[in-house]
């Protein structure tokens, strides 16, 4: 009995901590693994939808990782993609119904992008790469870590776009409180438009890679 306890890992062993913290920086799903960009950019014109989207992805990713990890030994490998899609799609339907019930305005703003969590490559990518070969608890942590990595990029992009584009943060008119409009400051309407999301992410990648030289690509 004592032996069994010894061989058992503590819940937050160094290895498990890595699962949570690596995706935040040097293994970030968006800027390094290039996954899940589709939905990441479209919802970042304002902070509120970005936060709701992050929470939805967090819920779907963590739960899907756990479910697939529990089923990993029973799924025949030939049909695993379909099984994964069914699990993800059912979770996304749940999230969509919850959003429609409790946050109807935001769910209207997110429009098709809640549904597009199904084809969000982060989720498929993590299921394939991690949950199919690991126990439920590490898979759960991996899901959380990657969702947080996704979330912080979303929130940073949305923060800057909303601040410079509409002069507010989470709907609060911060720029007006500071009083910069009196000295001739104007909101930059460009930041609200889709192309600026891409350029903002480009700049985040630039900053991240100039701080962490390992990530620089050859070409």
């Amino acid at each position, binding site marked *: 009995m004592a032996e069994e306890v010894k061989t058992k890992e503590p819940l937050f062993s160094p290895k498990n901590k890595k699962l949570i913290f690596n995706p935040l920086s040097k293994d970030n799903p968006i*800027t390094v693994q*290039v*996954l*899940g*960009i*589709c*939905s*990441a*950019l*479209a919802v970042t014109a304002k902070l509120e939808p970005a936060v709701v989207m992050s929470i939805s992805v967090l819920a779907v990713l963590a739960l899907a990782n756990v479910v697939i990890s529990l089923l990993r030994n029973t799924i025949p490998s030939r049909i695993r*993609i*379909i099984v994964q*899609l*069914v699990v993800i*799609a*059912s979770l*996304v*339907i749940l999230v*969509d*119904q919850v959003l429609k019930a409790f946050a109807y305005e935001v769910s209207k703003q997110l*429009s*098709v992008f809640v*549904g*597009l969590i*199904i*084809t*969000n*490559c982060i989720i*498929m990518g993590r299921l394939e790469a991690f949950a199919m070969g690991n126990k439920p608890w590490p898979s759960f942590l991996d899901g959380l870590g990657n969702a947080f990595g996704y979330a912080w990029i979303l929130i940073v992009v949305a923060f800057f776009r909303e601040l410079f584009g509409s002069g507010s943060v989470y709907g609060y008119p911060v720029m007006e409180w500071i009083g910069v409009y009196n000295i001739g400051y104007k909101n930059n309407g460009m930041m609200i*438009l*889709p*192309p*600026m*999301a*891409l*350029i903002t*992410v*480009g*700049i985040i*990648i*630039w*900053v*991240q*890679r*100039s701080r962490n030289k390992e990530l*620089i*690509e*050859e*070409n």
Partner: protein
Amino acid sequence: MQELVNIFVKSIFIDNMVFAYFLGMCSYLAVSKTVKTSVGLGIAVIFVLGITVPVDFLINKYLLSEGALTWLGPDFASVDLSFLSFIMFIAVIASMVQLVEMIIEKFSPALYTSLGIFLPLIAVNCAILGGSLFMQEREYASIAEATSFGLGSGVGWFLAIVGIAAIREKIRYSNVPAPLRGLGITFIITGLMGIAFMSFMGIKL
């Protein structure tokens, strides 16, 4: 007829899948290293969007949306199955991709060898599911409109990926700052292309 052309042109230039909605970005970034492969993937996307959007339109109209089941009898008039649409659409897409792959393999081995590797990738491309979801949200009136929307979105995606691939082939000869190389500069170029495409806004035939 004019309405169809209008939807087609609008979905290519104004509501471009990549530049206006960022759909299909994952494969857009991963496969756009050379023009040749990106042409292959682009054609496959046009093909699959042109098939799945009308099929999903029929499913939405006759099975899922509110009151769609009235053809079964008056008792079904109040049934609303639209919460099932995600799972139905993704199932249709996955099986249509499989079917298209098998048909192409049988009838045109040459096309299969050039498209073959891209078809499975497409099942999880957000542009395909996005096409069906936008079709549902915008409530196109007839199957012809839905088809023209599907084909137009495909052509728009094709233009975007071939354009970025051509630029990336050339940019290899330029001296990009090291931290921006690869992914960073691709994002910024896509942003600039998006700004260029925004000049089409407001076009109406």
